[in-house]
């Protein structure tokens, strides 16, 4: 497992990140915090693409990106980490190639295994944050349980058509994913355009950067619901389920 660098910023990095470091409250210290951070990106698809690309250009130290699938032609309307030449390769490996080209200072750890109850601990490893860029709730609930048990914050997002939802989970402070979305709808081939995943993925990346850098406030206990057809954004307060089988008090 790569260790994030604890070295101060290089001259190159000071130039590369200059425009974000002049944001009030950011500066070199915050940039160094980002450089020391490790994040787990679950899924290198429609959401995982903008999430990992924008975390990379921001200078996140280590990105562990996990996907057992291979890019298919029908993915390429939205999965901008991959292109026609990557069809048949593993998505995590393809992601590493794209991300390291966009910022060679970032360490990318590609993980080619499927997330299961057995593999989740090994795959996530020691990270500061989990970003849920998955496309099914069965796997999301495995990740959620792991996040709750190990007190790792997790940014959940989901997309459908031109709609999306997003929340920042940090138990015991907030509800967990099971409190918000108990159960799993059957996996189906659903409509999706790239820009939908693009918007939600960029918002996820920003929530991650804010958390890692301590700037601004996160969507804690709030579900952001977005309808792209009308460009309506709504905040829905979320409550903990007292007897939640994942994060409930009885456990």
């Amino acid at each position, binding site marked *: 497992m790569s260790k994030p660098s604890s070295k101060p910023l290089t001259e190159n990095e000071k130039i590369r990140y200059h425009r*974000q470091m002049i944001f*009030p409250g950011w500066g070199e210290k915050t940039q160094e915090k980002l450089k020391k951070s490790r994040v787990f990106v679950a899924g290198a698809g429609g959401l995982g693409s*903008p999430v990992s690309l*924008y975390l990379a250009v921001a200078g996140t130290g280590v990105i562990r990106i996990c996907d057992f699938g291979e890019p298919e*032609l029908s993915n390429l309307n939205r999965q901008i980490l991959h*292109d026609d030449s990557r069809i048949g390769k593993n998505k995590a490996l393809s992601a590493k190639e794209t991300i390291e080209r966009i910022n060679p200072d970032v360490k990318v750890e590609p993980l080619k295994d499927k997330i299961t109850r057995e593999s989740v601990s090994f795959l996530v490893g020691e990270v500061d944050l989990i970003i849920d860029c998955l496309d099914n709730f069965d796997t999301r609930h495995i990740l959620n349980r792991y996040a709750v048990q190990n007190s790792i914050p997790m940014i959940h997002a989901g997309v459908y*058509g*031109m709609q999306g939802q997003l929340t920042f989970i940090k138990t015991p402070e907030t509800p967990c994913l099971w409190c918000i979305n108990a159960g799993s709808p059957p996996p189906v081939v659903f409509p999706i355009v790239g820009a939908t995943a693009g918007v939600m993925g960029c918002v996820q990346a920003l929530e991650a950067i804010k958390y890692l850098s301590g*700037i601004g406030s996160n969507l804690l206990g709030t579900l952001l619901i977005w309808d792209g057809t009308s460009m309506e954004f709504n905040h829905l307060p979320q409550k903990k389920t007292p007897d939640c089988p994942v994060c409930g008090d009885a456990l």
Partner: protein
Amino acid sequence: MTLNTKELIRYQRQMLINNWGEGGQEKLRSSTVFIAGAGGLGSPVAIYLTAAGIGQIRICDFGKPELSNLNRQILHAESDIEKNKALSARETLFNINPHVNVVPLTVKLTENTVDELVGESDIILDCLDNFDTRHILNQYAVQKKLPMVHAGIHGLSGQITFIHSPETPCLHCIFPGSTPNQIFPVAGVTPGVIGVLEALEAIKWILGIGVNLKGKLLTWDGELMEFCKIEIKKDPNCPVCG
């Protein structure tokens, strides 16, 4: 021409969206967009319009990528420094979707060049970083009755509106002046969020799906993750569209 088998597979998932279908995809393929600027906003705009299968993308930038651009301008990498940004954009976009015809325009956008640069575009995407050039583009869009998606960013905040004069206010009605050019703070995700929204507004307009941000300015504060829609009105004495 109907879509070929490869295109039918590539765009399958978006064609499942209500009122999109093969007809919508063909509309996208026969459309031309003008992207003013290949920087922080232009990057996600161009990338997501390319992935969606727009026919022709005219992307205009006279600058070259610098190291300090790379925290946000995901069209470019360190190896592209010293190339022209529009040319660098074409390389990146060709890899993302070789079906899209990308026309790189390396000339500065001025009152004299705007007509030739915009050409036969159906819609204009304002991905600029200064109001002087925006007002040139706005004047042209109003004269030609072309729709223009305006966006601007600063720090972790942004704004976006859909301008289509005479139906909506023009950019001059909303922001009559020009702010002095200066180096302002910006993180990559800020133009990321706003740029992808711009791309979606353009796609919706071309397809006739949903409702565009006409007469409404969407403002976004990323620090608090708050979105606000502000009603905007035409200036009856506007020197551009009045």
